C-alpha cells in the first residue's frame, strides 16, 4: 500500500474506534497545493493527501486542542515540534497520536525549499505509527549552517548593515510568530504595553527589537521547520537568525531541540562546573 493509503487506513481506524476525536492532516488546497485539514469522522479520511506541497507544520494546531485526543500527520520537522511541545509540557503524550510520514522534501513553486535541502531527516524521529518505509537520514553537515558561516565571516559593520536592511522591511505582522510551533505564550512580549518592550511607532530599531527577541526566545527551542521564513511576506531570512542560535546551542550544550522529549532543554538546566567564558 502506498503511504497515503496507510494514512487513510490508520486515520479511519482511529476515528472509528474513537481513539481520537480528530485527525489533523493535509487536504487539497483550493488554489492548488495543500492546506491543513481537520477530519472529525471516518467519512472524511479520503480527503487526506500527502505530497511535496504539504508545507505546513501541523504540530501548531495541537496547542488549540489541549486535553482533546488528536491524531496528527507529521513530517520529520513537525514531529520534532511535537517533541518540543512535549518537553515543555504544553501537550500530553497520551492525548496525541503521531502519524509519521516519510517526507519527500517539500517543494514550493516546483523548487525544493532550502530547509528541506539542508534537512536529511526524511523519517520522523518519533511516531506512533509510520505510514511509509523508513529512510536513512542523510545530513549534510556542510549545508546545515550554510549562510550562517558566511554571515559570521562578515565584519561587524557589514552584519549590522545587512540586518538593518533586512529588518527595515519588517511590517511587524507577526506571521512568523503565529505560525511557529514554539511561539505559544498567552501574552507575547511584543503585546505588552507596560513595559513597552517594542514600541508601536514605525522605526527600524523597533523592528530589530522584535526580530532579535523573537529569535532569541527560540534559543535551544527552534526545531528548524522554517515556517517563519516561509510565511514572511517581505522575505526576511529568519532562518539565518534561528540557525545561528541553533549552532551556538549545539556547540556549547550539545543539544538539539525536539530530538528527545525527555531531554532537559538547555535553559531549563545547568551544570555547576561549566565554563561559558565569563571568567569561571
Amino acid at each position, binding site marked *: 500500500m502506498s503511504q497515503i493509503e496507510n494514512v487513510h487506513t490508520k486515520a479511519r481506524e482511529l476515528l472509528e474506534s474513537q481513539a481520537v476525536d480528530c485527525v489533523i492532516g493535509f487536504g487539497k488546497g483550493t488554489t492548488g497545493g495543500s492546506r491543513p485539514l481537520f477530519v472529525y469522522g471516518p467519512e472524511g479520511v479520503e480527503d487526506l493527501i500527502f505530497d511535496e506541497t504539504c508545507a505546513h507544520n501541523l504540530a501548531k494546531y495541537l496547542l488549540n486542542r489541549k486535553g482533546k485526543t488528536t491524531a496528527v500527520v507529521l513530517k520529520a520537522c513537525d514531529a520534532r515540534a511535537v517533541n518540543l511541545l512535549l518537553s515543555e509540557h504544553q501537550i500530553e503524550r497520551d492525548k496525541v497520536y503521531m502519524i509519521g510520514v516519510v517526507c519527500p522534501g517539500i517543494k514550493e513553486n516546483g523548487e525544493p525549499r532550502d530547509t528541506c535541502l539542508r534537512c536529511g531527516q526524511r523519517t520522523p524521529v518519533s511516531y506512533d505509527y509510520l505510514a511509509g518505509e523508513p529512510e536513512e537520514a542523510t545530513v549534510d553537515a556542510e549545508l546545515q549552517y550554510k549562510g550562517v558561516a558566511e*554571515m*559570521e565571516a562578515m565584519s*561587524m*559593520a557589514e*552584519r*549590522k*548593515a*545587512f*540586518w*538593518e536592511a533586512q529588518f527595515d522591511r519588517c511590517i511587524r505582522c507577526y506571521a512568523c510568530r503565529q505560525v511557529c510551533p514554539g511561539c505559544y505564550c498567552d501574552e507575547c*512580549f511584543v503585546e505588552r504595553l507596560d513595559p513597552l*518592550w517594542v514600541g508601536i511607532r514605525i*522605526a*527600524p*530599531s523597533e523592528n*530589530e*527589537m522584535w526580530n*532579535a*527577541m523573537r*529569535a*532569541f526566545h527560540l*534559543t*535551544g527551542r527552534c526545531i528548524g521547520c522554517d515556517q517563519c521564513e516561509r510565511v514572511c511576506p517581505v522575505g526576511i531570512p529568519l532562518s539565518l*537568525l534561528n540557525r*545561528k*542560535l541553533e549552532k*551556538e*546551542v549545539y556547540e*556549547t*550544550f550539545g543539544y538539539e531541540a525536539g530530538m528527545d522529549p525527555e531531554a532537559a532543554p*538547555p*535553559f531549563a538546566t*545547568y*551544570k*555547576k562546573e561549566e565554563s*561559558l*567564558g*565569563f*571568567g*569561571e
Partner: protein
Amino acid sequence: MGVEFEPRIVGFLCNWCSYAGADMAGTSRISYPPNLRVIRVPCSGRVDPILIVKSFQMGADGVLVAGCHPGDCHYAEGNYYARRRFAMLRPFLEYLGIEGDRFRVEWVSASEGRKFSEVVSSFTNQLTELGPRATGAAV
C-alpha cells in the same frame, strides 16, 4: 571642539552580592567612573536578555551584568541559569552587529568593593576606546 565621548553603561547588579559590592566600594571610598547607571535586581537570574537588548536599543553603549560568584548565589542557582542565557546572548549580539565587548558579565561579591571599581573602570575605558555605538537611522 567636540565634546569628549563618555560611554553610557547600564548596570544590572544583583541585590545580594554586586549591589552590596558597589556599596562596599562607596563606604571604602574607592572611586569608580560615573558612567554606570545602576539598576538593582534581585538576582542575576532576573536579568532577562530582553532587558539587555532593550538597553542597547535605548542607546546604551555598554551593558554590565554583575552577580554573585557561581556557587554563591543567594538563591542557590540563579546565576547558573543566567550565565547559560548570557553565553548564548553574547554571540547572538555579535551576529546582529553589536560588539560582544559591549556586554559584560562579572561576578562581584559583597566584599569585593575593589574589584567592582576595577570592573567599572576597565569597562568604561574599553567602551571609550570602542567609541559610541553606531546606531541606525532612528533609535
